[in-house]
Each structure stands twice: as structure tokens, then as C-alpha cells.
């Protein structure tokens, strides 16, 4: 083949160019340390790189964001639970202290003060938040668990299930000593005094009934008088935690007969007199099929109940069972007919007559109470976290928006379904779990809901404890005051010492009853508090398990992150020594092609002719 000079030089420059391309490619690799610059250079590497990049981004999200976030959340929850545990422990200590009967005035005062403080504090801890998100409130992280301040406007319709087997026998007291403040009043124990009061009427007396208590007192915090119980449902529990409704007594919508009566009464000394109303509810025999209950009485407070009781004549069976009656056959103590339920709105108590209590307990019924509650105290739990409830007025006291649209919000804790027999079944809802994805296909619920860790009843139990200590304090106070009067000069002349002795005896009896009540109640409560503590401790353990799980996953994610990073680097990146070697060889080739080209055309035939 004939070769011309131009062919040689073209060839040379082509070769130089080829070498340059290689030097350029190696140089790009050296600066980026990547195997490829564009996908078409090696689609397999490119696609694998994309996949690894995506996995790495995911792992980083889990390892660097979700897991630390979950961890902090769990930490905050744990701290709050530990605080609540401390509060419970304090309450427990007070229970122990209060149940021993050797308390001084100061002891009682301290117990009273501490209980009040603890009651407010207890659920305030439940408002614990992480990054401005409340941790115990399920998905409603923007809402508080408990009312932060007294709230007179908010109104709910609540349906609270109560378990019959939770009934406890409680002591109810009638009659009290009206403390005399001057000689005239002291003289009232004198049979010759025109204002003579029979000491019998001031002698404290006790009757015992089974009771259940609503989680809220229907004590008219709002002042609108809207608080009221409107229905009682009777349900049968099933082993899976659901309940089946059998029947109900519902006077809220008129399906049971309800009448209001006026009751007026004055205290034995005539100093106090009150006019009040109460409701008598008779179940509709068609709708109500359970039996045992034939009347429900709803009273505003215990005094109304006491006044009403004194006008009732118990049956012979009831008298035999221990209801004390006077000479007219009327009850001397607080009275619940055997087939009735008495509702005390002020304390939220449902007091059951003997037959009713026995029936409900023996049949292990669940009793759901429908009630309206308007106005809440500071520290009380919001009902939506525990019960099926409907918010019918918001904190501004508004129930409709500007367009007249109903603002009511319905909150569900139970799902309703109808079984084959046509009965409604209530099943507790799966909890509102905030799930964090902490690794591929693995989620961790980070939140504990309030109803999982603390019992609603603790608030009411503390209420009871506060009441009983304040009663005891008042009784002691009366006793001490009479004692002091006995030392006063004006009462040294007869018949006052003798009369005061009488007063003192009455006061002492009252004091003994209340002391007894307090120590009994505190030791009863001790058991409950232990249960509550158990629940909190269980939650802390549960939380601990989750934290352990998180730690394990974190470790695994850290390993995976390393592994994927390594894979990615292996896939994408060149080995530096290899790049340098390649680069050096390409560069050498380039240089030598330059040298070779340089020699070309130096000499031609012309040089020799």
C-alpha cells in the first residue's frame, strides 16, 4: 500500500487524540474517583448506584432522623411516667400515713395540703410534650391531656362504662353537730329550752351501701345546671374485652318516665334551710328488661339525699338488714331502697340498693352511664381520651359556628357493631398509635396513650381522700372548740358545764366516726393506689422494652448504613491506586505518542538530494 506523509501524520494525530481521550477519561476518574461519569458508560453500575443511593437515603432517614426522634419521644414519655410514679408513691405514702389513727392536727393539715397539690399535679404531668407535641394524647398531640386551668364553658356528653365488680361498700353518714357559738345556742341541749334539740337528731349515724363512682362529679362547675345523668345502659362483658348491650334506662330522650320533685328541709337547729329538687326515674318496662331496678333517684348532693331519706319508710326486710328507723318507721340514716339506684350528682356517685348491687355483681354487668358534664376543674382529664364522648360546647362556650353549623365533635374509644342477635357490641378501639418507621418494614409505636398508663379513677380517689380528711379535720375542730368553750368563764356556771359535756360527747362521736372513716378509706385506697402504681410501672417496663427494641434496631441500622455505604463506594468509586496506575500508563502512552509524532517529517527525501 502506498503511504503518503499526510497519512502518517493523520495517523499520528489520530493516535495522539486517542491517547488524549484516555488521559481525559482517567483524569475525570481521578478527580471524581467515580468509575463512570454518565449512565451509558456502564448502565449496570449506574442502575445499581441509583438503587444503593435510594437505600442509603432511606437508611439515613431511619438512622439519623426517625430513630433519634423516636428515642427522644420515648425519653420524654419515660420522664413523665417516672414523675407520675413519684406522685403515686407520694400518694401511697400519704395513704399509709392516713390509715394509722394517731394523727395530729398538723398531720391532717399536711395530708390535706399535699393531697390537694398532688391531685393538681398528677395529670399535669400527663400534659408532658416533646417538641410541643403532647405525648399521652394519641394522635391529638396538639391538645392537652388534662385541663390546664379551670374551664367553665366546655361541655361534653360522656358515656362511661362502669364495671359492677368494681363496686365497693362505702360508708355514708347522717346527722352532724351544729357547733354552738354562744350561750343561747349551747342551751339548746337543755330540755327546758324552748329551742330544744333532741341530741338524737345530731348524733352521727352510718349506713353502708355499694357504690360506683363516675369519673367526673356532676357538680355544676359551669353554674348553668346542665350537669346530669341521662341514661344507664346494662351490658354483658365478653372475654375479648367487648361488651354487648342488653338494655337501657334512658330518660334523657324520654323513653323512661322521669319526674322532678321539690324537697325542702331545715337543719335540726333551724339555722340551715334549703329547697332543692330531685328526680325520680321509673324504667319503661318494655325497654328495660333486666329486672332488679325499679326506680332511680337523682339528687343534687348528699344533704338532699339525707333529707329525703328521713321521709322514707324502709321495708321490714331492709330494717332487718340493718337500716335504722325511728319510732314512726322512717329511716334514720341515708337510705337506698333495695331495688333502687341513688345518684348523687355532686360526688358523681351511683349508690346501689341491696338487691340491685347483688344482681349486678353476681351477673358481672357492665353499666354504662350517659351524662352531660359542663365545666371542668384544673387538672381533670379530658374525657375524649378515656370515653366515647361528644364535645358539644368548646372552651369559648360556643356550640355553633357563624353559619349555624353544629360544631359538635364526636370522639370514639369504642367501635359499635351489631351481633347476630341484633344487640349492639362495643369493642374498645385499637389505640391511636403513632408509628415511626425505624427500618425497612419495621415500625415502632412510640406513644403510650393515657388510658394505657394511668387510671382515670385516681383523681376521684384523691377527691375522696381530701373529703374524708377535711371531714375529720372539721370534726376535730368542733371537738377542740367545745373543749375550749368548756374552759371559758361564761360557761362555768351550771347548767353549762353539763350541757357542754353533752355537746362534747356528740362531737366526740362524730370525730370518732370520721377518724375511723378516714383510716378505713385510706387503707382501702392504698390497695387502689398500688394497682395504679402497678399500671404505671407496667407502662414504664413496656416503654423500656420499646427502647431496647429501638436500641437494637439502631445498632442494626448503623451496621446497615456502613454496609450499604461500603457497597455503594465499591460500586461507584475507583480504587485510587488503580486510577493512578491507569492514569500514569495513559499519560505515558500519550507522551510517547507525542515524541513519536515529533520525529515525523523531520527528514524527507529532499534533505538528501
Amino acid at each position: 500500500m502506498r503511504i503518503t506523509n499526510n497519512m502518517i501524520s493523520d495517523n499520528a494525530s489520530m493516535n495522539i487524540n486517542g491517547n488524549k481521550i484516555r488521559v481525559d477519561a482517567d483524569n475525570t476518574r481521578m478527580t471524581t474517583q467515580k468509575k463512570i461519569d454518565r449512565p451509558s458508560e456502564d448502565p449496570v453500575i449506574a442502575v445499581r448506584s441509583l438503587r444503593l443511593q435510594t437505600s442509603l437515603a432511606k437508611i439515613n432517614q431511619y438512622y439519623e432522623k426517625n430513630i433519634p426522634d423516636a428515642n427522644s419521644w420515648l425519653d420524654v414519655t419515660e420522664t413523665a411516667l417516672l414523675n407520675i410514679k413519684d406522685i403515686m408513691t407520694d400518694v401511697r405514702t400519704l395513704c399509709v400515713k392516713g390509715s394509722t389513727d394517731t394523727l395530729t392536727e398538723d398531720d391532717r393539715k399536711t395530708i390535706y395540703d399535699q393531697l390537694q397539690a398532688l391531685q393538681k399535679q398528677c395529670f399535669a404531668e400527663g400534659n408532658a410534650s416533646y417538641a410541643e407535641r403532647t405525648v399521652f394524647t394519641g394522635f391529638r398531640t396538639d391538645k392537652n391531656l388534662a385541663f390546664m386551668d379551670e374551664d367553665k364553658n366546655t361541655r361534653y356528653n360522656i358515656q362511661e362504662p362502669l364495671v359492677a365488680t368494681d363496686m365497693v361498700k362505702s360508708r355514708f353518714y347522717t346527722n352532724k353537730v351544729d357547733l354552738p357559738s354562744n350561750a343561747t345556742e349551747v342551751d339548746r341541749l337543755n330540755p327546758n329550752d324552748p329551742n330544744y334539740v333532741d341530741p338524737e337528731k345530731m348524733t352521727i349515724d352510718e349506713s353502708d351501701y355499694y357504690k360506683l363512682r363516675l369519673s367526673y362529679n356532676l357538680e355544676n362547675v359551669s353554674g348553668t345546671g346542665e350537669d346530669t345523668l341521662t341514661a344507664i345502659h346494662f351490658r354483658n362483658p365478653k372475654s375479648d374485652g367487648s361488651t354487648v348491650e342488653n338494655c337501657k334506662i334512658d330518660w334523657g330522650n324520654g323513653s323512661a318516665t322521669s319526674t322532678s320533685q321539690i324537697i325542702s328541709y331545715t337543719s335540726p337547729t333551724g339555722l340551715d334551710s334549703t329547697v332543692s329538687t330531685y328526680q325520680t326515674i321509673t324504667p319503661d318496662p318494655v325497654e328495660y328488661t333486666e329486672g332488679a331496678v325499679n326506680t332511680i333517684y337523682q339528687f343534687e348532693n348528699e344533704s338532699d339525699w339525707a333529707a329525703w331519706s328521713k321521709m322514707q319508710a324502709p321495708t321490714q326486710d331492709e330494717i332487718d338488714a340493718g337500716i335504722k328507723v325511728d319510732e314512726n318507721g322512717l329511716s334514720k340514716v341515708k337510705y337506698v331502697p333495695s331495688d333502687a339506684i341513688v345518684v348523687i350528682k355532686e360526688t358523681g356517685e351511683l349508690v346501689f340498693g341491696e338487691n340491685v348491687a347483688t344482681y349486678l355483681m353476681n351477673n358481672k354487668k357492665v353499666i354504662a352511664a350517659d351524662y352531660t358534664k359542663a365545666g371542668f376543674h384544673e387538672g381533670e382529664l379530658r374525657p375524649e381520651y378515656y370515653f366515647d364522648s361528644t364535645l358539644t360546647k368548646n372552651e369559648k362556650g360556643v356550640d355553633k359556628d357563624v353559619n349555624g353549623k353544629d360544631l359538635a365533635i364526636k370522639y370514639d374509644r369504642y367501635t359499635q357493631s351489631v351481633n347476630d342477635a341484633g344487640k349492639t357490641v362495643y369493642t374498645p378501639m385499637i389505640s391511636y398509635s403513632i408509628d415511626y418507621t425505624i427500618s425497612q418494614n419495621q415500625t415502632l409505636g412510640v406513644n403510650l396513650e393515657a388510658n394505657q398508663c394511668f387510671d382515670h379513677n385516681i383523681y376521684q380517689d384523691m377527691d375522696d381522700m381530701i373529703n374524708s380528711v377535711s371531714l375529720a379535720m372539721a370534726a376535730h375542730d368542733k371537738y377542740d372548740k367545745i373543749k375550749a368553750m368548756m374552759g371559758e368563764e361564761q360557761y362555768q356556771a351550771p347548767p353549762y358545764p353539763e350541757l357542754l359535756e353533752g355537746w362534747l360527747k356528740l362531737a366526740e362521736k362524730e370525730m370518732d366516726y370520721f377518724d375511723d372513716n378516714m383510716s378505713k378509706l385510706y387503707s382501702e385506697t392504698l390497695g387502689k393506689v398500688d394497682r395504679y402504681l402497678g399500671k404505671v410501672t407496667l407502662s414504664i417496663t413496656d416503654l423500656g422494652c420499646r427502647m431496647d427494641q429501638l436500641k437494637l434496631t439502631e445498632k442494626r441500622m448503623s451496621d446497615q448504613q456502613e454496609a450499604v455505604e461500603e457497597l455503594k463506594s465499591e460500586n461507584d468509586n475507583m480504587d485510587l491506586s488503580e486510577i493512578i496506575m491507569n492514569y500514569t500508563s495513559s499519560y505515558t502512552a500519550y507522551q510517547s505518542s507525542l515524541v513519536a509524532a515529533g520525529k515525523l517529517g523531520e527528514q524527507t527525501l529532499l534533505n538528501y538530494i
Partner: protein
Amino acid sequence: MSSTFFGLTIAGSGLNAFQASINTTANNIANEETEGYARQKVVKEAAGALRVWQKFGSTSTGVVASSIESVRDKYYDDKYWINQGDYGYYDKKQYYMQQIEDYFNDKGGTAPGFSTIFADMFNSLEGVQTAAGDLSHRTEFVSEAQKMVDYFNNTAVRLENLQSSINDEVKTTIDQVNAIAQKIALINKQINVIEMQGGIANDLRDSRALLIDDLSKIVRIETDEQKVRNTNNPDIYTGATTFTVKINGQTLVETFEYNPLECRTREDKYNQSDVEGLYDVVWKKSGMKFNVISKNQSGSLKALFEMRDGNDYGNLRGTFFATESDTTTVSLINPSISKVEYMSLPEKGVITVNNTQYHYDSFSAEYRTKEYSVNGEIVKLPILYDEAGNEIGYDDEGHPLEGGGTPIIDKYNFHLTTGIVGAKLTQYDGMTVTVGTSISTKGVPFYQNQLNQFVRAFAKAFNDIHEQGEDINGKQAEAFFVAGNSMDGTQWKFENQRTYLNGEYDDGTTQSYGVTDENGNHIPSYKIGVLNDPDSNPPIMLDNYYQLTAKGMGINSNIKRDVNMFATTAKIANGIDNNELVRGLLSLESDTVLFRGGGADKFLQCIYADVTVDAQEADVFSGNYENILKQIDKQRQSVMGVDEDDEAMDLVKFQNAYNLSSKIISVLAEMYDQLILRTGV
């Protein structure tokens, strides 16, 4: 006896010939670096012998430089031109494939592409899952989603720009072809002028070959040169030649005449996302279309068309169907595209039936329907199908059962600008109809379609979940991803197409597919389209996913303004952190089959597969053809190239010969001196 002075004549002829040779050598050396120059050589012949009536018979009369010829081999030229075409094709293709590849390349942090942006978006959605009520997480998600939307908007616009720059290049390329054709015709004339007077127009022929070198890179060519002979006496060569250049079998240059091409702007788009003003190439004189993309074509022009128009057969095809009562509305049944997500036809365009083009100015698509009883009335509703292709019915109130399904388009109606006469309607019935063009390669329209299909499938899946929810204020959620309405700047929110899953609309209506009339009543409909035809019964739903393109995709402006309108749950009363919908949305990242049989996160992998196959092919073949080209060029150069050493050798040779011829003259002079002055005296 020959002339005593005959030797002088012979020597003179030598001087002449070698003078010419030296001149030619000089010319060769001078043109050593001239492009397209073929070395020339002087053809020398021994001059005719002369009978001199001597014993030795005749005597030779010296040398004649009969012609100066270029040394070229036509065989190599042809090979070179064929290969030029292939090289031009792949070289151009490689250039544009690299650009497309660059648009899709994902380099992670430095130049994030789809995979990175998509993963970021879903990571921020994971953040929303951990704290659905948290404003900052919501804002982060919406802004990451906006990044994804931007990615699609930008990529679509870049592809559009690419398409329009390819289109510009088509224009300049056609201009170039015309210019070359014109020059060739001119040169043909000059060559003939020169050659008819005898001799060869070497330099002109070199120029012509050079022009054809350039032309062959653009289109595949065939050349043909014929000698013109005297018609009366075919043995006599007139010196004239005809020279024909054909492209694609059609004549571009016919000796002195040339046939220009012309770029004519298309009236209608062929694909939905095509830019306006694409050119078709026609022969200027006849107006016939110049078919660039045929199998046996090559050259850069073909590559340009393939990149500009390639849709990988993604256009709509089907069977012609007409009712004789209406000649302006014709229908297409058995469509190749039966889902809204895959629709690629332009709003206005052309349909081709029986090789005739008809323009349509609007169209509508009809779902396959069936009569269902709704609220006691019989209404025609689209049949919904689940993934396995089983029919899903409606309940008594017209809500789809089992969470709904996908309707299937089984008919398209086109409103033509000019009607078809009745006889033709019958003739066309059952024939194949094509909307736009079918081109097998993957060019800009193919990638635009892929983007559109992906965003529609993704947006629909996302919206279907999102619309089940309530925003933070308890209001029914709107579509999250919406389509920009280029006509009035508003957004299409697909409200008429909501799949009914979550109770009733605000207006209390119960139809899942329908439109709302002026009184706000819901009317069931199974027609979707682009034109609001007031006479259509049922009415045509304009607000459909066909309106969504990668270029026009956006995020619902209400949600962008107030991120609290992003819905994470169907029941906000359970709390703002309720997030069951987010879980559903998260499954769209990879668990739900959305695009080409895979999860959404596999989008770029699919595109990579397409891009890299073509880019690699273009890369490898352009390299190969370049090598072959160099080889052929080498062979060609080997024949026609000028070599210094050769020329130097020639120089020595010719100089020596010239010197010797001169020497002969001086020797002869001495001889005459001897003979005339000394011998006779």
C-alpha cells in the same frame, strides 16, 4: 530519410513534457495540504512514429504529454460516501442522546436527578408520618414535592427546547442540502464547458467530490455520471457528461438542474407534548413529502428526525368507525391506548386513514359503559375493572364497589375541520386510523410521553388516596397534584373524576363519574375530552388527567398557600397526628405498581434502560463508523494523496529528464556545428 533536425524536435518534446511534469509536481506540492485535492499526474505517451523510408523503418518522434489526470478511484469514493451516511447518522444521534442522557443523569448531591429528588420527597413524607400535625414537617414535604414537580417541569421544558433546537437544525441542514445541490449543478456546467473543449476539469471535479463528501454525511446519496455521446454517431464522445445525484431514490441534481427541498411548518402537532412549528420536509417543486425516516436511509438528517419525532409507536391507532349522519365527527374504535394516563394524542392534530390526512380540532374519549340502576334510575356508567381485569359494579347509589377501579376507553371521537364525504365514510369503515405518526425510535416525544405517563399515574394514585382525607380543619381534601390550565392560568383539580370512597360530596351528589351542570347538579358522564361541546350528551368532562403533563404539573395552589390543607387522615377528629393516609401514600414509593410494571421509584431505572441502550448504540456505532471511515479514507488517500517523497523523487526524475533533453539539444547543436561548419568546408 528523416530530417536532420528531427532530433531537435524530439528533444523539444521531452523538454515540453517534462516542463509540464515539473509544473504538475509543483502543483501537487502546492496542494499537498488542500482538502479534497487528488494528486495529478501527466500522462505521457510516446508520440506517433514517423515513416522515414529507411531501412530501420520508422522512427519515434518523442513524447506527448497527452493529459493531466487526477489519480482517484471511484470505488473508494462510493464506499466513502455510503459510510459517511452511517457515520453522520450515528454521530448526530450520539450528540443528542448525550444531551437527553444528561437531562436524566442523577449525580446525587451535586446534580440531583429523579431518584435523589424522589427519595428526598418520600423521606420528608416519613417525617410527616412521625408528626402529621407538625407544620414544619408538612412544609418540608410540600417543598420537597414542589422540587419533584420542578424536576418534571424542567425536564419537560428542556426536552421541548431540545426538540425545537433539533427542529432549527433541520432547517439549517435542509438549507445546506439545497446549497450543496445548487453548487453541484453549477460545477457540472463548468466541468462540461471545460471538458467539451477537451481535457479534464480536475480541480472542479475535486470540488464536486468534496461537496458530495459533505452531502453524503447528511443523506444517503447515489451518484451517476454518464458520458454524452453524439446521438448520430454513438462512437463519438462529445466530451460532455451528465451527472445525477439522488437522495432517497429521488433526484436532487440532474446535471445543470437541481431540485430544492423545503421546510414546511406543520399545522398540527403529532404528539401531545410536541412544540409548535415543527417542520416537515417537502420537495419544493412538487410539494411531495420527502420521507427522511425510511429503512434504507441514513445520514444526520435521519438522526435529526428520529430524535425530534421518535415516539416508539406510542401514538394512538385504531379502527375507523363512522356514522353516516355526521360527517364531521368520526370515531376510532379498538384503540391502541385505553387509559387516560397513556393518552399521547395532541388536542388538535391529524388523523391518517387510507393515506389521507384529516385535521381534527378537538376530540373526546368514551369509556366502555354499561347500564346500571342508580337510585331507581337506569344510567349509563363506565365499567370499572380491577387489576386482574374483573368488572367492579356500583352500589344502589352509584358508588363503585370494592373501593373502585379503572375505566377503559374504547372509543375516541374526532371533530374534523373538513368533513368526509359519505362515500368515503363507507370506504374507510374498518380501515386503520393513525393519529400523528408512528416512528419506531425513541426520541424526544417518547421521553415526553414517558414523563407524562409517569406523572399521570403517580399523581392519580397520590390524589386518589389524598382525596379520601380531611385537611386539618376537617374539610374534604382536594387533589394534591394538579394540572396547570394554560388557557386561563387556573388549575385542573380533577374534581369530576374523584373515585367515590369517602361518603358524599359537599353537594350531596352520589355519582362518581360525572360533571356538574349550571345548577350544581351532578350528571353522570362517561366522556372525557378537551372541548366543551355543549350539545354532547352526556356532557364531556374537561377536568381529567389528560390535562396533566410533566410540563404543566403543579401542586394545588391552596395547599401550597396553606400546608394544613394537606390531608393525612380521613378522620381528623381522632387527632392531628392521625396518619393512616400517609401510610398509603408512602406505599406509592415502591410497593405500588405504577409505571411499566414496577414501583414509582423504578422510573429512572426504566428511563436509564432506554437512554443507555440508545446512547450506547449511538456511541459504539459512531465510533465504529468513524474507524471504518478512517480506513476508507486511508485507502482513498493512499491513492489520491500527495506524498512529499514521491514528489521529491519526481522532481529529481523530471529534472534529470529535462536536463538530459536539454543536453541532447546541446549535443545536437555540437553535431550541427560539426556538420555545417566543419564538415562541408
